[in-house]
């Protein structure tokens, strides 16, 4: 659940440097090239809205980097005040070994390593789970990735990719459709299907695409859980890419101390 934070925000912040030709290999390469060496989301905000219209807002900072091609991410909550300082650290383990996740809760003043059972959990009571995001991430390395069609989205050309994961991966959704903006190679929209029905939807707008240096990111997106009838707005105010980030931010012993 916690490491989902990085992944969820990563969806917004994954960047693109070049457009690609209409074949799956080129599209995949274009999307892989989007992952920056280092990433800092200065302020992110998540506004989760429940079925009855009630909202909960969390805001904080996100730091991420690629270390030997393994993702490391740290999230630190700034608001609300009673959650301030709560932090997560996610470190991708060696291939096939999943991730290490560490949690720091200021009220307990303890760091705990969490394993197992988190993939389907909601992120801070929001509508995206780590498993959902990982499924998208897998989409770009999965053999089942297919280019379904090209179409336009908000007047811009997009590729529609589909992925049907191996059932042995025990992923919740049996199909994912992703709309990739051809100019930025950004995921603008994604649908998570189960038994042919769309259960979750990630949606952004090309109008919210912004650049940080040479990279693109979405400043705003929405995740709808169509089954729970809830949704979460994600807002990113500033993204800095390829800046050097201190190692202590990704160290399980010191990450909770913050920058």
């Amino acid at each position, binding site marked *: *659940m*916690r490491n989902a934070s990085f992944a969820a925000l990563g969806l917004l912040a994954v960047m693109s440097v070049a457009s690609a030709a209409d074949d799956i290999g080129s599209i995949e390469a274009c999307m892989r090239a989007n992952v920056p060496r280092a990433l800092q989301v200065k302020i992110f905000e998540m506004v*989760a*809205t*429940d*079925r*009855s219209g*009630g*909202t*909960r807002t969390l805001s904080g900072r996100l730091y991420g980097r690629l270390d030997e091609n393994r993702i490391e991410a740290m999230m630190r909550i700034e608001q609300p005040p*009673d*959650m301030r300082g*709560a932090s*997560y650290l996610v470190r991708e383990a060696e291939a096939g070994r999943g991730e290490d996740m560490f*949690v720091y*809760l*200021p*009220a*307990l003043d*303890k*760091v*705990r*390593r*969490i*394993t*197992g*059972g*988190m993939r*389907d*959990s*909601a992120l*801070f*009571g929001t509508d995206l789970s780590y498993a959902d995001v990982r499924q998208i991430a897998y989409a770009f390395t999965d053999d089942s990735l297919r280019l379904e069609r090209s179409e336009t989205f908000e007047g811009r050309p997009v590729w529609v990719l589909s992925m049907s994961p191996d059932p042995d991966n*025990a992923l*919740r959704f*049996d199909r994912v459709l992703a709309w990739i903006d051809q100019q930025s190679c950004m995921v603008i929209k994604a649908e998570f299907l*189960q*038994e042919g*029905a769309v259960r979750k939807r990630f949606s952004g707008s090309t109008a919210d695409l912004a650049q940080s240096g040479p990279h693109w990111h979405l400043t705003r997106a929405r995740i709808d859980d169509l*089954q*729970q*009838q*809830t949704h979460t707005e994600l807002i990113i105010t500033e993204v800095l890419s390829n800046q050097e980030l201190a190692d202590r931010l990704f160290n399980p012993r010191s990450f909770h101390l913050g920058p």
Partner: protein
Amino acid sequence: MMLLSRLIEQAARRPGLILLAAALLSLLALLQLFSLPQMTPRLKLDPSTESLLPLGDRDRQVYERVRSTFGEVETVLMSVRLSPMFTPQNMARIEELTRELLGFPGVKHVFSLGTAANILADGQDVELGSFTRQAAQDPAAVKDFVARIHANPLYRGVLLSEDGEHTALVIGLDAHGEERFRRDDYTGQFRELARRITGSDQVWLAGSPVVKAASTGAMLRTLFLSLPVTYLIAIALVLLAFRSVRATFAVVLTVSLALLWTLATAVAMGLSLNLVSILMPPLVVTLGLAYAIHLLSDFYDSPARSQAERRERRLEVMNRVGAGLLLAGITTIAGFLALMPGGLLAVREFALLSSIGVGYLFLLILFFLPALLDHLHCAPLRRQWGQAFTDRWADRLAAFDIKWRRPIVWTAMILVVLDLWLAAGIQVGTNYIRAFREGVPVREEYEALNRTFDGANLVSVLIETHVNDALTDPELVQGIDALQQWLREQPEVGQAVSYVDHLKLINQSLNENDPAYFSVPQDSAAIKQLLLFAGGEEIRRVLDARLRSALISVRIRVGDSVEITDFVERVEARLAELKPPLNGSITGTPVLATRTVNAIGRGQGVSLAIACFVIWAMLALMFTSARAGLWALLPNLVPVSIYFGTLSLLDIPLSPTNSLIAAIVLGVAVDDTVHYLTRFNRDARATGSELSAVGSALRSTLRPSTLTTLALCLGLLALTGSELRSQVQFGLLASFTLFLAWVSGLTLTPALGSRLRIVTLWDLLRMDLGPSPQHTIPLLSGLSLRQARIFALTAKLESHASGDLMIRQGDFARDMFVVVDGTLEVSIDRNGERKVLATMRRGAVLGEAGYFGQRRTADVSCITAVRVLRFDAVDLERLRRRNPWIAATIFRNLNRVQAERLARATAMLG
């Protein structure tokens, strides 16, 4: 009434037009009912139980709030027996089963060993994988699972049975899933899936969706069977009773048209057939049959050969049946409409559609059926089947009723009082599970699950604060914890689980699994952080995003509404003690269903009172007397009160199903009373003797009333084939009550009627006394037109042909006459010579000597056709008792007439 009279006259004259109009209306109804060109039916069947829930009240609002806040609509419990349970293979099977179940549309979540986290704390590490995941990663870990589950208050008795051989899967459905559950037979699909994946031969399913689906299926099967059975009964009875295929066809067509029009009206009104209103079609057919039998009996009484004779017969039959049919229809509708105030939506729609159906039946049977019978050239029988038998019994019954009048009336009175006293002890309640017969899977599986998992009925306690983050306040959390503890101590409760359990467990897990930390943190921020950071989907289902409302899921062992009511009352008293800002409400389908049952029970008295009042008012209006209305109502109150007394004696609780019986029977049974009294009134007037009218009225009504009772009882007994005991009970009790109504109608009604000289509104309006009788007939001076007619109906209106000798000089008599129209001549015989004394016209009073006990002093013969009112002292005495003001005016007028006559005689002598 006058309008009806005119309509009858017009309809009798133009049978072709009636048939054509009915055909056109039926065509329109067909077009309304089916959409062209595929002819797909527009009328929908709505088997959902939504309409069975109370509308707009506080309970419903709480239920809706839970749905809107937490999204969950219903929960299904599945139990799978695996022995031994904890093997890596079985864990993999449970995971697969969980995954497959999650794939069903409408399934929102599955809580099972495949999704529940087995929290393992080891120093700094906290493992949150599910049991099945952990088993897959480390097969040796399964040996600790039993101990882990028993140590976890969230899972103990929830995921694993006490004997460790059964595991439960709690399947949450959303609104979409609830609808699909029944439509797509999820019960069967889930069971088959579990058997296939796990290889278990013991898969049990329980929960409200399972019970609702089974109940709905059983009801639909029964009702789909009952409609053709009712038709078969109708055909068999009419064929047997009237031995005419054409008449049978006519009746079936008439009744079918009424049903067609009713269904088309339902479509036009945007109504679907719900679980209660689906009772309407067989009911309309049965009632139509009952009405038609009365009309056929009269129709076959009067032979007609020529066109003119047929027209006369139509007019006569329609006139004879019209008033009774109208009153029968109105009282039946009153019975149905009495179910509406405060009733559930399903019951209201049933009452509305049934009332509309009865209205159409009235129109079609009164206007269409006679026209169709004539059109089909249905020839009257020489003797109708069973007529000789019923004639014999009618005479015996009449003699019995007259001889034992007082004991019959007293017995009836005592029975009413005794049964109403017994009825005070009737319990209101139902048991939705025990409504199924023993051996039916839904009942067996529920009971097995209830035993094995210490409760299979799920209710929720909704905790609300209306303050964001309030549920992280340690003091309030402790309050909820104490409430939960109290709930667990209740004898009905098997399990009570809330976010507080999750919170304690997470706290312990993040504190090196130290049991001392299985507690509520004393800091609000700590609670919030634990809930938001470590809380997963399971917490989201019981705690809202703003941390201000939560659910305590309570599993109870009881399914009887009486026991649930007792539990709910205790819980509500405890909830009232919660410290502000905590507010608590108990909800869930069992709670709502129980409230519904109780509301029906409470509303039963009101429904019956309304039905009785409306029916009495109708009868009083029809018989122009409050007392006559009461006497006509009493024979129908007897069976209804015996019905309630029987419920009490047999310890049968008043349930939603059997609560319909009293109002329906009251509305239906009063039809026979109306038919009898109308006939009795006519015969009494014709013969001038109430006692002989008892016999003749019984002779003409015994056969049709027996046939209609037979039809109704047989139709209702078709329900005894149901899988649902409640429907079997409904069929048996309703037919029993109708049988009682029949017995009452044959004994009490004639016994009461034998001393009752009634004047029907019909008679009153049709009584023709010429223009302004109160101004042109001195005896009626000072009365209103209505009062004049009441007097005329208390007396006897006689017609005499020109030349008739109406009064013979020297005869002994006790009655007198008032001339309504025509001319009479008064003469005496003097030594063989006839001497005319006077010529009498409209308004003249004759024969007063006879009235005062003297012999007739003169002959009175009719010069023209004459109509006179004849009355005697008995009539005037009856008038004095029933209408003293009219009697006083008549006596005054009579006095005045006599005084004038005396004055004239004195003047002549002078």
